[in-house]
């Protein structure tokens, strides 16, 4: 269902593009960055639990907003929920929040998924984690992973790596 106001309203057009390009939040993020700085939040909870691949089609947002009294830039404040849309294997429902006539939040309402994407950040000790004192081990390894080196250590590491590569 297309809203006739879409053509005239750049924000709504932006929302439609947001979905039609098939790249989640790409246009909106840039729009948000340019117009709201980092204040706009886009909460996208992927329902399948996997990272979406480019080209995944997301259907248009149906905002069902046909407001009679509009703010000066065309939007009436409030929270508008779109319909549930079937996108391949996902089910997506979007909620858009308008504040001060501007789009301030777009939220995908989460559906049960396999990966827990809303992990509670808990700073208290987790008894299931294990601790040990670090100890020097053999340096006879193929690959080293670690905190990024300073430029000096980096040069040393590069020299060592290059001489290994030659040898």
């Amino acid at each position, binding site marked *: 269902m297309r809203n006739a106001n879409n053509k005239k309203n750049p924000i709504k057009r932006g929302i439609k*593009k947001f979905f039609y390009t098939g*790249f*989640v*939040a*790409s*246009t909106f*993020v*840039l729009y948000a*960055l340019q117009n709201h*700085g*980092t204040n706009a939040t*886009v*909460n*996208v*909870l*992927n329902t399948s639990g996997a*990272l*979406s691949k*480019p080209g995944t089609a997301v259907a248009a947002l149906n905002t069902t907003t046909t407001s009679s009294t509009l703010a000066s830039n065309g939007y009436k404040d409030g929270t508008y929920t779109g319909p549930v849309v079937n996108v391949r294997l996902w089910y997506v429902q979007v909620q858009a929040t308008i504040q001060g006539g501007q789009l301030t939040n777009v939220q995908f309402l989460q559906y049960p998924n*396999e*990966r*827990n*994407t*809303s*992990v509670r*950040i*808990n*700073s208290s000790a*987790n008894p*299931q*984690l*294990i*601790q*040990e*004192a*670090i*100890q*020097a*081990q*053999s*340096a*006879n*390894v*193929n*690959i*080293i*992973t*670690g*905190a*990024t*080196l*300073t430029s000096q*250590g*980096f040069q040393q*590491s*590069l020299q060592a*790596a*290059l001489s*290994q*590569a030659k040898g």
Partner: protein
Amino acid sequence: MLKLISETRLMWDMPITVAVVEPTAFPETGSSAQPGEGNEYPGALQQAELRQAPKNIEALISGIFDYFQYVDDKFSTFKPLSEISMINQGLLSLEEASLDMQSVIALGEEIRQETNGYFNIARHGRIDPLGLVKGWALSNAADKLREAGCENFYVEAGGDFQAVGLNAEGQPWRVGIRNPFNIGEIVKVLAICDRGVATSGTYIRGQHIDNPVSGGPTDPEILSITVIGPDVYEADCYATAAFAMGRAGIGFIDALEGFEGYMIDINKTATYTRGFERYVNHASH
């Protein structure tokens, strides 16, 4: 023992290594590397069909570095003419951007959601995707090598890597976690096969990862966190996010299905996730 064909170049401001175990069709005379004698490795017979001379592998590796150069030219915010610089200056809109650029920015938004904002490529009104692009490019490079028929290799940049198959000795890749207190030392040895590994941590002399959520520096108590997962792209993003979360980061990794982590703090204590032990190398050497 097979030959490891490896090249390291300085790119993206860090050493990048691409190393491929040379497949051989014909075992060396006198060696015990005959099929059926116990030290064949998965894919040995298949690789016999795909025998590639060392010269081809070197060309393949060179092609991977060409790809990394392409990535740098596109995504480096230090290059005023890069595509990302054009976007940040408002000279190029996202609709006009390349497919790779749109993919990266979309992926950035996804990972921002998954990490509750702790991983965020948009800061101070600009997009700096380099933290995400490194793992993404490494992952793509690994795909390219797989498509070319390589089955045993690794691609590594600045300590983050994707390791596929087995090393030249026919064993899982031996991976060392660097001691943040003594960069010449290894404090943990892992056995890695078909995994992506990334470590986020502080520079030895300071802190370089800001906490995107609070905007301030990260928890000074945490020196590094190493994350292991199926793919280096995700491991890299989650390691960065987990490091920004401070001490809670290891709990975040523990709750993530399919990922394990090892965190080292200022007290020289390591905290690791419940499933991390499966990656620890217990073989004698």
